[in-house]
């Protein structure tokens, strides 16, 4: 959760430039080999993919096959049946008879289960990976309560301002050169004047607008304050928090009016159909632009959210990290750990990529030379950031994020004048939460 690592920015940029760390590569390879030779890791391993869609299962199966080819250990892969049901029922899954390894998400969702003893400690495996695992990702995967890691990061995606290059050129605007909030407001105004939606918003699900809230909070008050706020060390009723809401309110006049009726896919459609200027979202749906046409895909672009407070610049970003965890109730924990480590290693990444995985990988050996312009831009967007957030619903306890913050932001969007009442309610709800143990 607290992944404030200054060197991180450097390492990300190194990744971005695709600079191969040749000398260090040898060291990493050595540790990888030695870890594979550990004696406990034998016997068949079971593996649950978090998703159940065709691409996801194909990639997961490719990992299983490649591992078998390399080590001779059998891996049985299965889909989760339904992604959301799997995520919601993870506690039961882990208390029952879970598979040894499963795909999961970093942040609270991992740390909470780790504290309950349901996940195996993967710290040794992370250190075996050595320089292959950039420090930013390691600290992002670290459980703050005991300083150990229970997930091996594999892939991630950034949250940023998405727009169409052609639309902005037509309007004579340049989002890439927005320096200040005033410039940003001018951009929104300019878009709206031309009859388009300035800032597309869809918050039907209650979580979509969290992205905007988090980024404004980190831009105004910094990453530390944001994480403190989400973990009860700062208050929702603080003036600093209220200021964030008031800043957020400045965007509302530029939003589409039906923001509570549409979800993220509604926002995507606004952008697809050239009805809006900018939208703040994670970039997981770019393939839909490609499904429409190559031209539309080439038109899509992403930039970081603009600076508000020069003290913090653009030093934070939401970039949820996915990875693999090992269930402590699994039947082959040691074998599971070795497989999880292998998935996080260069060999695992290459196997997934060979199966058609276009995700951005955490592994530092990521070869970006084959990346298209949009994917390179995604790397550039995150390369600028020093602090990586896992998104609000993973940075904070689940019984607060979904049930309190989501509806509160929805209420705020409907009636921004009630901000004082809303933050009072949020703070009350936080204070009323039972302790986690």
């Amino acid at each position: 959760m607290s992944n404030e690592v200054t060197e991180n920015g450097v390492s990300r940029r190194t990744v971005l430039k695709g600079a191969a760390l040749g000398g260090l590569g040898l060291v990493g390879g050595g540790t990888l080999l030695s870890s594979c030779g550990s004696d406990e890791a034998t016997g068949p391993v079971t593996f649950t993919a978090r998703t159940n869609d065709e691409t996801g299962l194909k990639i997961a199966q490719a990992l299983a096959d490649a591992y078998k080819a390399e080590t001779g250990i059998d891996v049985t892969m299965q889909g989760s049946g339904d992604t959301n049901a799997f995520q919601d029922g993870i506690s039961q899954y882990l208390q029952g008879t879970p598979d040894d390894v499963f795909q999961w998400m970093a942040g609270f969702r991992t740390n909470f289960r780790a504290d309950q003893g349901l996940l195996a400690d993967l710290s040794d495996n992370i250190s075996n990976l050595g320089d292959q695992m950039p420090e930013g990702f390691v600290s992002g995967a670290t459980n703050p309560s005991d300083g150990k890691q229970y997930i091996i990061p594999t892939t991630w995606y950034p949250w940023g301002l998405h727009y169409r290059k052609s639309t902005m050129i037509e309007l004579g605007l340049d989002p890439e050169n927005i320096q200040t909030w005033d410039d940003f407001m001018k951009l929104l105004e300019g878009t709206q004047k031309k009859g388009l939606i300035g800032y597309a918003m869809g918050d039907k699900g209650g979580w979509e607008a969290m992205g905007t809230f988090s980024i404004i909070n980190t831009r105004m008050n910094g990453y530390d304050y944001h994480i403190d706020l989400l973990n009860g060390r700062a208050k929702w009723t603080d003036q600093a928090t209220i200021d964030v809401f008031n800043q957020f309110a400045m965007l509302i006049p530029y939003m589409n009016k039906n923001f509570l009726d549409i979800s993220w896919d509604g926002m995507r459609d606004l952008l697809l159909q050239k009805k809006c200027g900018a939208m703040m979202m994670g970039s997981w749906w770019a393939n839909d632009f490609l499904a429409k046409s190559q031209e539309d895909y080439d038109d899509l672009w992403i930039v970081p959210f603009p600076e508000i407070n020069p003290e913090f610049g653009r030093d934070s970003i939401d970039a949820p990290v996915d990875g693999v965890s090992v269930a402590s109730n699994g039947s082959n924990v040691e074998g599971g750990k070795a497989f999880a480590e292998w998935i996080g290693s260069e060999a695992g990444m290459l196997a997934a990529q060979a199966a058609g995985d276009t995700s951005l990988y955490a592994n530092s050996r990521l070869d970006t030379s084959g990346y298209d312009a949009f994917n390179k831009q995604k790397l550039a967007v995150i390369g600028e950031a020093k602090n990586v957030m896992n998104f609000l619903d993973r940075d904070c306890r689940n019984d607060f994020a979904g049930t309190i913050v989501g509806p509160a932001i929805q209420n705020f969007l409907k009636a921004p004048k009630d901000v004082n009442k809303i933050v009072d309610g949020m703070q009350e709800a936080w204070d009323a939460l039972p302790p986690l143990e």
Partner: protein
Amino acid sequence: MSGIVQDKKYRDRQKRKDFFITVFIAIFAFIWMVPLLWTFFTSLRPYSDVIQNGVFSKPSSIGIQNYINAYDRMEIWEYLSNSFIVAIPAVVLTLFFGSLMAFVVTRYSFKFNLYLLLLFTAGNLLPVQLVYAPLFKMYIWIGELFGNRNLLYDSFIGLILVHVALQMGFATFVMSSYMKTIPKEISESALLDGASVFRHYWNVILPLLRPPLAALSVLMTTWIYNEFFWAIVLIKSDSKRPITSALGRLQGEFVTDFNLLAAGAIMAALPTLIIFFILKRQFVSGLTLGSTKG
């Protein structure tokens, strides 16, 4: 109606009434059909078409490609057989236990008859999500007692038992209502001839229960077949999940091709539709069973 003298004025009034009722029913039937027809319509269009032109647009092309793709991806036969491995024993057991229960509460008078029946009916009203967590713990606990966590959890047996337990209340309720319409004299003559309790149930009452048994078996097969909740929370292995889970294969983590999903949903719904059309009469009679008495 037949005993009433029907003059012309009355007939006209009746005709007008019938006309309005028909229009009314037609409107509501249409409202009910729209989502189904829309799903069918969607299933015939390619995803790229919807992305390009929006959901409410004239389709650029129509075809069954979605059905072919969905069939390829769903591994439909494996999941379908899982569905029936669960549904058939569950329905048979539910009807057996339900009829036993109904037999006892209607044919014999104990002090607690009414309360027993109430308990079963009230149990029906509990939302299943409420009992999920305790049930899960119980399954694991019983499994550990026998040294095998997967005795009930992640096994067909466990899933069948859940369905039996949850559907039995309704089965008991319907069959006891029906049994009350069977004349007491039949039971009395059976007892007079010296039939044991089981013989009384098996040879005398059960054959008379054919209509509610037929109706309930159709209804329950459909319900259990369509059930998804227990299948996803109590079954860990994807290879043991029923057909409803196969639909999950057509969904993406973030982005779902709804046209493909629509095709898959229609294919998954086909068996229930077939069952419905074959046994339509039992289905309809099942809805009104026992409604005149009890």
